[in-house]
């Protein structure tokens, strides 16, 4: 598979139409096949061993071309990403960036109850601001963190810590007349994602 850099990828599914009904399997096993469990465990263990961090893993999956992304099963995506991460990354864990350092003390720019607006951007890198919530206004519900900014951590760069806000968006704000004012979606957003 070719992996062009992109961020508006096949993974950013929120609000799409046409994927059909949600089909729940009765008495579903944890893993459907033996290799799935091994791929899950290897991804987890290789990450904890420092070969890559969570955002590098996500970013690798997000670069799968959208048609391939949707066609592949969940663990097929993981297997492809694991192969690519192994090929690309140094396999000397000692050289990998630490996954966690002590978070700094930061003063959040916003308070609970503040009205905030998300930035409208389409960057060519990993981000956790989903497309459907860009350029939208919401209310700060909770303040957390700080947590490392995924956009930079996905490139294996030094950790940049920022406060994270749970922001509640009204259904009308997100979906116009197709949304309900009695419904809301809350997302956890790094300070960088807010204007």
């Amino acid at each position: 598979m070719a992996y062009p850099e992109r961020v508006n990828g096949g993974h950013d599914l929120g609000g799409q139409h046409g994927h059909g009904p949600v089909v729940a399997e009765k008495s579903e096993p944890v893993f459907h096949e033996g290799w799935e469990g091994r791929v899950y465990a290897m991804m987890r263990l290789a990450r904890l061993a420092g070969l890559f961090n969570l955002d590098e893993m996500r970013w690798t999956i997000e670069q799968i071309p959208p048609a391939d992304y949707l066609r592949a099963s969940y663990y097929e995506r993981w297997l492809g990403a694991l192969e690519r991460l192994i090929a690309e990354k140094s396999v000397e864990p000692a050289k990998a960036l630490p996954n966690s350092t002590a978070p700094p003390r930061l003063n959040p720019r916003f308070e609970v109850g503040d009205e905030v607006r998300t930035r409208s951007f389409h960057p060519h890198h990993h981000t956790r601001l989903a497309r459907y919530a860009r350029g939208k206004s919401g209310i700060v519900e909770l303040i957390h963190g700080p947590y490392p900014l995924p956009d930079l951590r996905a490139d294996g760069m030094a950790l940049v810590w920022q406060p994270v806000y749970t922001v509640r968006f009204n259904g009308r704000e997100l979906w116009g007349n197709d949304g309900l004012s009695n419904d809301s979606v809350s997302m956890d957003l790094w300070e960088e994602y807010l204007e």
Partner: protein
Amino acid sequence: MSHEHPHQHGHAELSDLEARALAVESLLVEKGLITSDAVDRVVYRFEHDIGPMVGAKVVARAWTDTAFKARLLADGTAAIAELGIDSQDLHLEVVENRPGIHNLVVCTLCSCYPWFLLGLPPVWYKSAPYRSRAVIEPRAVLHEFGVDQPDETQIKVWDSSADLRYMVLPERPAGTEGWPEERLAALVSRDAMIGTAVVAISEAVTP
């Protein structure tokens, strides 16, 4: 997908995916990053030890201990630590269903899920239909799961996009007054803690 049992028949019948997974495992073991024993242990843990029964215990405790419930809603991470549950650097936010408020958890970008309480997510939770629709038409999705909420009930969807994980604290069903925790926990389904089900007294457990 293979319907063979290749481990009993040797490598000749490995499916492409099995062969690739095996190649990755050999490479990671060779590099000294993982051991096959550690892989076995992780698989075992998720198949046997971590699952919705962990979250159900937390829910039953919250239903029977109002002080614990208050702590759970204020700081979920600390409250489950009291019960020996480690959220491993993730922060737990527990959202409570009440009359007039129904909560629903999704991860539109990947598959974030409170695995330390519920185990690994089912395929539908990670699927394109659920991830695309839960945020734009939550009521239609709930209807497909057999949950119909009146228009005046507020539907609060939580799209997990950072280091927080969400669990729904379902409403305790009427008619369970005085029940011990274990019996209450048996009522609590995985889907009720995601928000795609409500807890009801089924005929099977009614005395």
